[in-house]
């Protein structure tokens, strides 16, 4: 906690604790050059008309106007909103429910946990490709149900523009809910056994104990989970690339893919910068309430 560096006599200020400063050069460089420098650079150039190469010819908010007038971007945002809301709610509900089930002193808990968490070890590319195959209308789930005798059954989310984003959602939740379960389980384990005993003595049913007592107590864990899921949602990219490549048509495009395509495929740099700046803005909108809850709340308590 406290530093022990100040105990010896003080030579030149800059040279004091020199080794620690040298050791911190990578961190300082990363913080200043990459995180602040590169971000500022991108924001600055998003106000230019850079095409193939970046150049400082400012055009004000023109790129942003064009961005919000592009159908593909609007589709991307709409997809992200659907994906985000569903994935947030479902991952939290599934993650918490599974953790609560496992917390009921289950035998083989380790086995269950291992099975529920292994998807998280896999990359989004692998996840996307497996689910692409399972959801394949000719061989996958749809065909299986048809073979059972329900001939008219249709379940082809990846080929139906209206619901394609939910096909991606299925894969995303499969991959990510295990992580949330583990975090929730750690939170549940942190709750004092006496609280359960007290609730039992008072005759409160188990489900009610969870809703009224346990979940409010786990607020910090929920906030952490929320931030984790939310910051993951904004970055959704690989999964879409692997599962649908944005198709059919542009039905499953997401902002991160828009940015990549504008920057590295269609040589429209400033458009990509503007889109990525919008992504940053959305992250900031998510982060500020969290920072407020996390750090503003402590002062009150």
């Amino acid at each position, binding site marked *: 906690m406290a530093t022990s560096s100040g105990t010896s006599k003080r030579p030149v200020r800059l040279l004091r*604790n020199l080794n*620690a*400063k040298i*050791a911190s050069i990578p*961190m300082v460089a990363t913080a200043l050059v990459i*995180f602040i420098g590169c971000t500022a650079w991108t924001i600055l150039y998003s106000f230019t008309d850079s095409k193939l190469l970046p150049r400082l010819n400012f055009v004000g908010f023109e790129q942003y106007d064009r961005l919000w007038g592009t159908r593909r971007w609007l589709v991307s945002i709409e997809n992200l909103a659907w994906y985000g809301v569903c994935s947030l709610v479902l991952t939290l509900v599934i993650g918490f429910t599974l953790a609560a089930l496992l917390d009921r002193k289950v035998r083989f808990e380790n086995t269950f946990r291992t099975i529920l968490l292994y998807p998280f*070890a896999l990359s989004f590319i692998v996840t996307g490709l497996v689910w692409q*195959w399972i959801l394949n209308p000719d061989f996958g789930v749809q065909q299986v149900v048809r073979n059972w005798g329900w001939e008219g059954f249709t379940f082809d989310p990846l080929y139906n523009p209206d619901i394609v984003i939910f096909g991606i959602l299925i894969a995303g939740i499969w991959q990510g809910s295990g*992580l949330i379960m583990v975090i929730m389980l750690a939170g549940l384990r942190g709750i004092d056994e006496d609280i359960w005993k007290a609730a039992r003595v008072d005759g409160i049913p188990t489900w009610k104990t969870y809703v009224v007592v346990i979940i409010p107590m786990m607020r910090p864990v929920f906030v952490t989970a929320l931030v984790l899921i939310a910051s993951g949602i904004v970055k959704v*990219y690989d999964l879409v690339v692997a599962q649908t490549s944005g198709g059919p048509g542009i039905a499953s495009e997401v902002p991160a893919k828009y940015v990549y395509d504008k920057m590295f495929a269609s040589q429209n740099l400033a458009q990509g910068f503007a889109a990525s700046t919008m992504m940053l803005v959305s992250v900031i909108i998510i982060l500020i309430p969290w920072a407020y809850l996390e750090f503003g709340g402590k002062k009150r308590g």
Partner: protein
Amino acid sequence: MVDAAHPRGPKPRRRLSRGNIMLYGTLIVVAMYYALPLYVMIVTSLKGMPEIRMGNVFSPPVEITFQPWVKAWSEACTGINCDGLSRGFWNSVQILIPSVFLSIIIASINGYALANWRFKGADVFFTILILGAFIPYQVMLYPIVIILREMGLYGSLWGLVLVHTVFGMPILTLLFRNYFSAIPEELFKAARVDGAGFWGIYFRIMLPMSLPIFVVAMILQVTGIWNDFLFGVIYTRPEIYPMTVQLNNIVNSVQGVKEYNVNMAATLLTGLVPLTIYFVSGKLFVRGIAAGAVKG
């Protein structure tokens, strides 16, 4: 307190109460759902194409063949290269090893400096570093291309290694800082009294005491870097694409007949490294992600 020695209240329920059947039933169904994709990958990769066309994704193979695996590993095509996923595998290995070592060495020394040798202003940079972890990568992608190009590293393995080192830094530094902070300060002070300096304490006291956290960091980095797609596709060229990128190119290529069995063998091959680490490391993996998640 009065009657603590003797159990009170009703007897514990028998094991197979209705509630327990429900509980285990739900868990088993859920576990089967989660395990299903792995099962599908395995059975599909062991079938021949005629069998795949006859059946569905869930039917077990009648005639087991390892041909798809051989083909995925050494013959599958991406563009003009037809030497299979083995190329991507070795590229990934070459990217992985230096990235993991470099990022862990830098972050551990940095975390140590932050925990024990904090200097004025260090916390400011550390805060920026942690907040930086929340910035979407897309915002920083292009300027980094320029930086790498200026350094002559754009499109090379070492460029990608550098990128992984930089983006692994926030979480790893946090991990090490917290770990070193928890080591009793008396130990550090005693070493100081004995005349050990910055590096002496790091190598002789901190390093031997923190093997578990190094393993956790290693697991975190190996799975993270192996599974990366975005950086690989942007900062390397086709000949040195990492495995994930090559896998995606093989499976989602538009030309030729779709060979689902080869695709699934390739997918499974790519997932094999993180899966092995996951199943072998068990609790440590969980600890790694929990440490990364709860504090981050």
